[in-house]
């Protein structure tokens, strides 16, 4: 579509409302997904998308209208304003501190996935697939490759005019092994901000995954209960995202007086050497960007400093209501959803323990690596390992069935008693909240050790 034409159409429609705040976002998307299942290419899909939304705010009430047809913008503005008026109330706090931005961000990098031919992508996946099937004892496999380009046009009644593109590449490999009724799987995920080279040269990781699926079939289950666990940087990344990240999203807190009290800045959540940050300003990670989906410049936010809660993640609205600074964390998965407070790149900073110290004095425990998933309900959270091993007398021993770990935000962080210095980022995940999934995020950590961590049996 013609860039100028879209922009002018939006600017024109945006100028015609009596809302306290009006925002129009239009998006163009183009994505490719290639899926190999078992020995063959299963699907190749290309999706093209165009759509937009109008968001209006009147006295604290929001209206939101989303559409695919851009020819009806003015009517959509009218509907959104009417809806906002219906939801308005006399008791509200206005949006303040809105600095308009006028900018155009065009990403460029040497090996953009969107410029690689489909035949080349298929060729690479076929190579990995052949590698998987060159070994014996595999029941099935899945390779999923996806890349996408999203270009947004954002205009609001405070004067913001923004064009910004974002590129993403994701790749997941999983291998299934079976013995009678027992099916086990192993896998890994990676991703990048559009750089294709991240999916190249993965032969060793693929071979490793095949071996792990087979070994897992032979491995024994463990009993559930409280145990000493060591998390690798990838799973510890998922841990920090689930255990603490979501609770630092201000939209859970801003209208909840009890939670505000519970999450008061200055409260101690963990040991002295625990530091947690989030920020899209950290470059070249999957949660990195220059402006969020409300046009707020990205930043880097300290959430926990020396074990103490010092900050949280905001949208324009939550920041205004809590009288704190917006952090550039309002994100939306697509034009059919309004932006909500989300994480970007979340991590535990390096500590001071060597790996040998972390494992050294564990008599019996679990080494949990790699991720399968994670979920939170604020207080309680769960996260699942992709692979697990027994630790005995400081040594990592045999593989066991992958465990699910669970914790309580008010106790589990305090139980972290060793933090390594090998920070690594997990770029293969996506986050879900309010029906918006998967949102590109990254998370990471050095190795960490947690005492008395509840794990499920298998």
């Amino acid at each position, binding site marked *: 579509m013609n860039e100028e034409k879209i922009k002018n159409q939006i600017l024109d429609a945006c100028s015609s409302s009596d809302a306290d705040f009006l925002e129009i976002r239009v998006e163009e998307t183009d994505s490719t997904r290639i899926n190999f299942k078992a020995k063959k290419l299963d699907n190749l899909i290309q999706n*093209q998308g165009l759509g937009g939304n109008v968001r209006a705010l009147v006295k604290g009430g929001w209206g939101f209208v989303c559409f695919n047809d851009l020819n009806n913008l003015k009517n959509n503005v009218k509907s959104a304003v009417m809806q906002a008026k219906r939801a308005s109330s006399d008791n509200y706090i206005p949006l303040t501190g809105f600095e308009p931005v006028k900018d155009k961000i065009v990403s460029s990098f040497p090996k953009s996935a969107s410029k690689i031919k489909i035949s080349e992508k*298929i060729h690479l996946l076929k190579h990995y697939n052949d590698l998987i099937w060159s070994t014996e004892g595999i029941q099935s496999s899945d390779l999923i490759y996806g890349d996408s380009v999203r270009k947004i046009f954002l205009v609001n009644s405070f004067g913001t005019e923004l064009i910004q593109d974002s590129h993403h590449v994701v790749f997941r490999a999983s291998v299934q092994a079976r013995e009678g009724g027992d099916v086990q799987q192993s896998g890994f995920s990676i991703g990048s901000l559009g750089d294709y080279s991240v999916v190249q040269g993965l032969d060793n990781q693929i071979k490793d995954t095949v071996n792990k699926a087979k070994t897992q079939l032979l491995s024994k289950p463990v009993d559930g209960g409280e145990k000493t666990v060591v998390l690798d940087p990838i799973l510890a990344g998922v841990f920090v995202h689930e255990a603490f990240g979501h609770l630092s999203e201000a939209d859970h807190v801003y209208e909840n007086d009890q939670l505000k009290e519970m999450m008061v800045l200055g409260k101690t959540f963990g040991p002295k050497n625990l530091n947690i940050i989030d920020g899209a300003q950290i470059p070249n990670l999957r949660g990195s960007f220059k402006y969020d989906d409300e046009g707020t410049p990205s930043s880097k936010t300290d959430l926990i400093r020396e074990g103490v809660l010092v900050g949280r993640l905001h949208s324009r609205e939550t920041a205004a209501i809590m009288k704190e600074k917006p952090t550039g964390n309002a994100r939306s998965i697509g034009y059919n959803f309004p932006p909500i407070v989300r994480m970007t790149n979340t991590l535990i900073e390096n500590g001071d323990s060597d790996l040998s110290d972390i494992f050294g004095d564990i008599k019996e425990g679990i080494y949990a690596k790699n991720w399968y998933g994670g979920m939170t309900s604020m207080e309680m959270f769960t996260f699942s390992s992709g692979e697990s091993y027994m630790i005995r007398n400081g040594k990592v021993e045999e593989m066991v069935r992958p465990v699910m770990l669970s914790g309580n935000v008010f106790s589990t962080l305090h139980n972290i008693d060793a933090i390594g210095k090998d920070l690594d980022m997990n770029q293969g995940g996506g986050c879900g909240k309010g029906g918006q999934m998967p949102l590109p995020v990254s998370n990471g950590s050095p190795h960490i050790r947690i005492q008395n961590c509840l794990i499920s049996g298998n």
Partner: protein
Amino acid sequence: MDTKKILEDSLKRSDEAEIFTVVSEKEPVGFEANRLKTLSKTSGQGWALRVIKDRKIGLSTSTYPNSETLISRACDASDFGKNVEYSFPSNFSYKKNKNTEINVPLDKMVDMGEKIIKTLLKEWPSLLLEANISRSSGFTEILNSSGFNSSYEWNSFSAGVGGTLIKGEDMLFVWESFGWSEFKDYSDVIINSLHEQLKNAENISETPNENCPVIFTPRGFVTTFIEPLISSFNGINIVEGISPISEKMGQKIFDENITIVDDPTISGALGERPFDDEGVPASKNTLIQNGVISGNLLNLESAYKLNLQPTGSASRSISSPPTPSTSVIEVKPGKYLYKELISGLKEGIIVDQLLGAGQGNELGGDFKGNVLLGYRVKDGKILGRIKNTMISGNIFDCLKNLSWISRDTNWIYGSFNVPHIMCENIQIASST
């Protein structure tokens, strides 16, 4: 977009073609922190084109009318596509469902939310409620080169209300939702259910040390068992040999009282449809009959590979290929009322919401999670809520022998009609 023209134009460059169209509109009314916050209207449209050329299939999709790109991309994709030996299905006649329009006014939806919030706040003043009350409608159409040319309209009305209650560092989450293809005033049902959850959870109870029987409420059943079950009956997993029931058709591997049916013909349920997303007629599909594996979920492709008839189980979103899934699930009820069964129970736990279900090895039938909302039962009484507790098990182990299935069932999300069940063989772990 002129779908007939797209079909014609596609056939100039391919041997067979199918165009799938979805148009939908959703209007949710959102409450946050005990007050009306957002009114929305979300309209969507999309087209998915599949072509078969030299027996190879290609797919492309779009949310805006750009037929030339749609066609050329689908044809290009077919160059790399997998071999297909099946054809798209031809037309059949069916009785059009009565056109029930969702005509509930927005004001009535707002009133409903306000009534629920106001009523619950009377007894629980520090409760923080959020609600989403929504009406939607849509249209699905399939046109293909075998002559299929049909469409149907659908409607839904749903209401979901969640409450948070915080005491010190303890957070309690309660939740209830209902959905159906026509408007129903669910406010009293929701109020009663949330009231009961809040009452039962008022005290915190210790999780029993020994592994005891576990009762799953209908919602607990859906969260815990449905995904691993669907994954086992999914034709694609059966073709690949990664379903634990791959070679077990006709065998009795579950409790004889378990009968599970996938039935897209149930009038009014969310998921009712005359044909599936590939144009295969919808029909009742018994998956488990008295514990015996008696059916599976097949799309065109998996049916062809297994040399079986497709079961009308294909589901797709605009941007994904059709895969086997369920429509409306019914689990056959048992003999006694849930309340009677609980009153006769010496010791047990009730699982209503499970956090993290679906993160385990679902392919193998495993489930595990943290009991987000659950209670302890002792000597026939619900003592209170259990916390910091995880359960884990395998569906093939714990559905082999059930202690009981209740006579009363609940509709969950308008798509699952499920009783309460009690099973053993579940590991319980808790922190002290």
